[in-house]
């Protein structure tokens, strides 16, 4: 059962990550990046945070590092795991105020994009992308009736 859970989640994460790359290839804009994988990670980390997610996330990170990235093996694995932990930790334990959800979202989106921090358009990219992705998150939240 655990293997099935791992496989389905691994497939879901991997396909979403590939879709994210493909989507950003089509929506070729240096100021905007749409991140469905981050949204998935965010939703999972808030609503379904579990140790069982470690392997699918790590596997996805490794796949990304091996096939889709020029970075050293493990960079995106760390980023994905770190983002997942931080989302849950900050949201559940660290802060509690009215706008904690957008704050957690924005902060972790920045951490998610840390590998691109040397990019000159990083600031514009982050500002616009956080906004757009947060809107997407709200849309998904409403459609899926997520109680977050």
């Amino acid at each position, binding site marked *: 059962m655990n293997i099935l859970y791992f496989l389905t989640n691994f497939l879901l994460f991997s396909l979403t990550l590939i879709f994210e790359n493909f989507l950003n290839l089509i929506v070729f804009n240096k100021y905007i990046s749409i991140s469905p994988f981050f949204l998935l990670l965010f939703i999972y980390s808030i609503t379904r945070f579990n140790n069982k997610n470690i392997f699918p996330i790590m596997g996805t990170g490794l796949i990304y590092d091996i096939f889709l990235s020029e970075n050293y093996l*493990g960079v995106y694995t760390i980023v994905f795991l770190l983002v997942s932990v931080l989302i849950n930790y900050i949201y559940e334990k660290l802060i509690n105020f009215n706008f904690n959800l957008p704050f957690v979202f924005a902060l972790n989106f920045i951490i998610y994009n840390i590998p691109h921090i040397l990019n000159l358009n990083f600031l514009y990219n982050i500002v616009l992308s956080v906004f757009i992705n947060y809107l997407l998150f709200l849309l998904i939240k409403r459609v899926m009736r997520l109680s977050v």
Partner: protein
Amino acid sequence: MLNVKSKPQRNYVLYILFIFLSSLLILVDFFSNKEMSSYIPKSLTFEFNLDVFETTYIDSFNSLITSRAELVAENIRLEQEVRNLRALEIENDSLEEKIKSFENISLIKNFNNLNFVETSLIIKNSSNEFLVSGGTNQNFKNRDLVLDERGYVVGYLKEVFYSYSILETFLSQSFKIQLIDKYNNEYILSSDGNQLSLYSINILKFNTDIDFLFTDISYNHSGKFPVVDTRSINFELVNNQINTSFNISNIFTFNTQLFIPKSK
């Protein structure tokens, strides 16, 4: 979806352990000069297939988007071109009409000494006077003759303003003009608004082949232009005088091209 309540902090321990594990992977990969991360891509021909996939499907998809964008752009360009061509067609028709009217007017004798300034009707006022375009800005003056495209006189300028003028025609009750025929007999043509009255003021030599009564430079007219075709009216000498009335027939329309002859 379930709203998971706060988790015990030990849940993060495993995550942190795997983060350290991943850090170890980075170190190994760094010191092995990316041997680890490039092992699978190098050993598999998947990368080649990925290239094929990229070049075939993604490129074709990109080219689809590009070609669609090009088609949309071309469509917009063609629509604009059609609009321009329609505007040009209208302009061309208008110019053809003008050329035709200019050809007609150029058949007038002594054309070489005159410039024909084009004018057009703007509106007709309640006194049966017509407002025509052009005034002192085009060097128009009071009593300047106004011709139609055949070269016939249709009236004269009664009052000239800066950009428009008032044209007195046969329809105006105060229309009055002095004319001459080819034997230098002199006439006065006047109108009551419904009929034109023609009477002679000086008959020197009368003949049946007079045909036309003209304007003349001796009356401060700009040239010799036909006004009345005597063949179509009752034009007979009685008691060495001509005194006749006839209906107004030479009515121009808003489509008539009008010209004002000016001496060069």
